[in-house]
Each structure stands twice: as structure tokens, then as C-alpha cells.
């Protein structure tokens, strides 16, 4: 369960200019929901997602994830929360180029200290779920964009975190692959994951349970 109260994020650039990327965002996301966050470019969507994903901390305001106040935690605890509770799917896939598809999927399990014996099984299952079991030993550079994004989804699947944050997961894909990816995110939602999808695509946004609209760092509607 995600609760934000009055979240404000101010970036200070090297030139001393301050950018208010988030301006008093308060929202609530219940477990198991499929949420779409929509808004114009530069409106603060990614900033919000970074805070929800414990990659960044707000300048002001409060963010509680499953009852824990994130702003009170150190970097060690944040990384532990990321490891156990959150999976990201990025627009740019963010796979490690030197690792094969299977190894990329396995990585979060290693950081989580899952036993080697069960890792193999989980990785196979995850790759099967996205239909890439035949590509297990390919490097990201040997896969198409759509396939790479499917590996990223398999990685989220394997990590088995309750919260999935997807920032424009279809932004770099053709419409066919985009539909596949959306379908897989819904699949994850159906098995109980909370999915927060950032998107420009109104049609994709409409498949969500609920839309949150952001403009100039504020939630509208």
C-alpha cells in the first residue's frame, strides 16, 4: 500500500537554478491495483516514480510504503526495500549488456540471496512466462527491443516483488510488441502484483483500474 502526503521534490542544478518537479503530491495506491500515471512531458511522472521506487527521496512530504516511512531510512534499508518489494520496468529496458537474458533475470535473485538451486527454476519459469525460454543464453544486444523488454518483465516476474513500477515500458516499442508488454503487465497484475504504469498512450492508460493525471508536478483530478 502506497501513501504519499504532500510530496515535493525540488532539483537544484549546478547553476543554482531550482526546479520544482513535484509540488504537493498526495495519493494512495492500494495493493493489487493497476494504476496509470499520465501527464505531459516534464510534468514530474518519472520523479514521482523514482520516489515511489525508493531510488530517490522527496525534498518535503511523506512517503509510506506498507506502513514504513521511507524518508526516515538510510541507503542500506532503501536497497533492501527495493530488493524485496519493488521491480522496475524502464523505457530503455535497462538490462546489463554483458549478461545473458537468463543471467539478467537471475540477478535480483542473487542480490536477494536466493539459493542457487531454486534460482535456476525461477529463471526458467520467468523466461517461459514471457515466451523467451529459447533465448535464455542470448545477450541483450542479440535481442530485439520487444524481446529485451520481455526479458525486463521476466526479471520483474522472477524477483516476485509485490510492486511493479513501469516507466513508459512501451515507449521504444512498435505497437505489436507494446501490446504484448501491456498484456504481460496485466498478467502480473492478475497474479496479485500492484502495477504502476507511466504512459503517454491514452489507450494503454484506459486499460488500467484508475488513472492519475499529473500536471506541473501536481495531481489533477
Amino acid at each position, binding site marked *: 500500500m502506497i501513501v504519499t502526503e504532500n510530496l515535493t521534490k525540488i532539483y537544484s542544478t549546478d547553476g543554482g537554478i531550482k526546479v520544482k518537479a513535484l509540488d504537493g503530491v498526495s495519493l494512495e495506491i492500494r495493493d493489487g491495483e493497476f494504476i496509470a500515471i499520465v501527464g505531459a512531458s516534464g510534468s514530474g511522472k518519472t520523479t514521482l516514480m*523514482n520516489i515511489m*521506487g525508493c*531510488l*530517490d527521496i522527496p525534498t518535503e512530504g511523506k512517503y509510506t510504503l506498507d506502513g514504513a516511512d521511507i524518508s526516515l531510512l538510510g*541507503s*542500506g534499508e532503501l*536497497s*533492501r526495500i*527495493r*530488493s*524485496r518489494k519493488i*521491480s*522496475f520496468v*524502464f523505457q530503455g529496458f*535497462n*538490462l*546489463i*549488456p*554483458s*549478461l545473458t537474458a537468463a543471467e539478467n533475470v537471475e*540477478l*535480483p535473485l*542473487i*542480490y*536477494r*540471496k536466493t539459493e*542457487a538451486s531454486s534460482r535456476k527454476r525461477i529463471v526458467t519459469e520467468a523466461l517461459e512466462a514471457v515466451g523467451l525460454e529459447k533465448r535464455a543464453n542470448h545477450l541483450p544486444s542479440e535481442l530485439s527491443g520487444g524481446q529485451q523488454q520481455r526479458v525486463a518483465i521476466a*526479471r520483474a516476474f522472477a*524477483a516476485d516483488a509485490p510492486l511493479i513500477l513501469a516507466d513508459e515500458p512501451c515507449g521504444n516499442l512498435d505497437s505489436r510488441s507494446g501490446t504484448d508488454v501491456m498484456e504481460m503487465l496485466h498478467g502480473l497484475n492478475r497474479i496479485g502484483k500492484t502495477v504502476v504504469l507511466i504512459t503517454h498512450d491514452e489507450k494503454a492508460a484506459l486499460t488500467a483500474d484508475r488513472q492519475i493525471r499529473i500536471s506541473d508536478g501536481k495531481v489533477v483530478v
Partner: protein
Amino acid sequence: MTGSKAISAFRSIKRGKSRSLLTLCSVAVGVFAVVVISGIGSVGTREINSTMLTMGINSAMVEAAGTGSGINLTDDDVTAFGELKGVNKAMPLMGAMSKAKILGKFLNCYAWGVDQDAKDIISIEAVHGRLIDDKDVENHAPVCVIDEVLAEESYGRSNIVGKKINILLGGSYREFLVVGIAKSGITGLQSVMSGIIPDFVYLPYSTMQDIVGKTSFDKIALLLEKDAADEGLAKTLTAEVNSLKDSSDGLVINNFQSQKGQLTDILSIITTVLSLIAGISLVVSGITVMTAMLVSVGERTREIGIKKSIGAGNADIMIEFLLESVLLTAFGSLIGIAAGLGACLGGCLVLGVEFVLPLESVIAAFGFSVLMGALFGVYPALKAARLRPIEALR
């Protein structure tokens, strides 16, 4: 857990191929130098020990403590010293640094003036021909016995009995007939370190006295009844020879054992100093490792961000990078050790001496370079671990 980290560190090394290769090389070269130098040291020490062991354990030399002591050693002294208790035999000795001109080649050597007792007292042995005998001494004959090495370096074979060679004595070269070839004491080592341990030529002492214009001797060699390393015997003998010559401490007694000690001391000082200098190159390669790792951290910022976003903690990233630099140095030093030992082994084969593994130095060089890798790897690893995930991801 650590296993998979090691694999991923190894991958990263493989990926940054040319940079990793250069870093490996810098570590390898440093370790190579240390291994080769200490290899020369241990082979040299062993050679000195083994030859000196066969060379006159019971022999000692009486000589003036310093130049200009004004003490002249004469025939009477030889007789008197020979009658001292504990002394079996005494022999006059002349000695001078010299050069031999053999077949147009100038070779450094040390010329000994000896008599027929040289065989017993300084234990030389003829491999061809004969040694200096009493008639040579009596006749002041222009004959010589030379080390096998000298023959081989000039003629390319050991038996050159009957050839005439020139030896630099008293300021000019004089012709000598080679009557015998002596088994070279320190064999291979002599050819490497001819500056420190020269090759020897042996002449009748009387001939040598004529040439340098002396009637006295430079030293008197003694053959003792027991081990010359015996401190008590050396002390009483020193007192006795000094009282015979009416001097308080103008004469000293040196034995070959103490000379062996001096030689090995010199050698060990040289190799230690050189090894330390080579050790500095290991520090330099540590810095190279650090540079390479810093560049690698810079290049992999995004990768670090991705890893952090999927749950890697600071410690995970830290260990990954540290492992990489340690693996890099460990691998580099293994290459260096292999190459260094190979070079030592090859050198020993060429020189025909027995190879001695400088095990301690090999372990020390390996440990030290891996330590350098770990130490200099800490900063880049910390830098990587401390990257903030959003900044790393951008």
C-alpha cells in the same frame, strides 16, 4: 554468492579487454622483475655455497690487515707458520687482479701465485694437463694453469693445454704457456658475475714475484688440521702469527668460509635492494589498477544504477569491484610469476646451473601485488558503491 560475483567480475575484466590486458601487463612486469631478481639471488647463493663447500674447508689465509702495514711475509714465515700447532702445511700466495689475453680476447681474471701445494690447500683440481709443480717454482717458469671457463670463453673448448696466452702483470702483458686447466669453482655463476667472482689463473709464485718485483709474499695459505671456521683456532693462530712477526694486530686470518659468508651477504644485499626497487613497480602497477578501475566505474555508472534499482546494496557493488581489481592483480601476478620462473629456468639451463625456486619471494610478490590490487581497488569500489541510484541511471 561470492562465486557468481567472481564470475561477473571476471566478465567485466573480459569486457574491458585492452584496458584489462594493459593492467594485467603492468602487474605481470612488476612481478616478473621481482621473481627474476630473487631467482638470480637464490641460484647464486646456492652456487656459492656448493662451490665454497668443496673449496678448502680446512684452509685459511694469513694476510696483512691493511695496505701499508709494513709487514713482509717471507719464506721463513712460511716455514714458521707451517710448524704452528694445528697447522698441517703452509704455502706462499701472491694475488693480483689481472686480465688475460687469450686468442685476441681480453678476459678479466684474478692471478694467483702458488706452489705445488695448491692442490691440497686451496683444493684446485686439473681437468686437463697438470697443476703448478715444484720445478715450475724453482725455475721461475712462465707457465700457468687457467680456469676451464677462461678456456671455454676464448677457444670454445676446455682443453687448451700447450697454447700460449698473455697475462697482464706488473703493467704489461707477458706470455705464459698453459700447462693445465683447472676445474672452475663457480662455473655458470662466474660468467654472469665475473665482476664479483672472477675467473682464476694460477702461476708459480716465484714467477709472479719476479714480474711484480717483490721478494715477499702477499699472503700465506694454511692447511689446518680441522675446520677453519673454528673460532678458537683462528684466534690463537692469529695471535701466534702476529707474535712471530712482532706485530700486535697487523696480520689477520681469513678462511674461505668467511669469504663465502661475505659473498652471499653481498649477493643477498644486492638482490634485496633490487627486489625492493622492483617492488616499487608493484606499487606503480597498483596505481595503474586504480586508474583502470576508476575508468571502469565511470563507464559502468549506468550498470551500477541498474543493479541498484534491482536490489543491489552498496556492499554488493563494493565487493564486485574489489573482486575485479583483486582478480586482475592476482591473474597478472600469476602471469608474471610464470614468466619470471620460466626466465630463471631458461637462464639456468643456458648457464648449466641448478635451478632453485625462490619460493618465499614468489609468495611475497604474489601476496604484495594482490594486496596492492585490494588497497588501490578500495577507492574505485567505494566510489562505485556510493553512486546514488538515480544519478547512476540517468
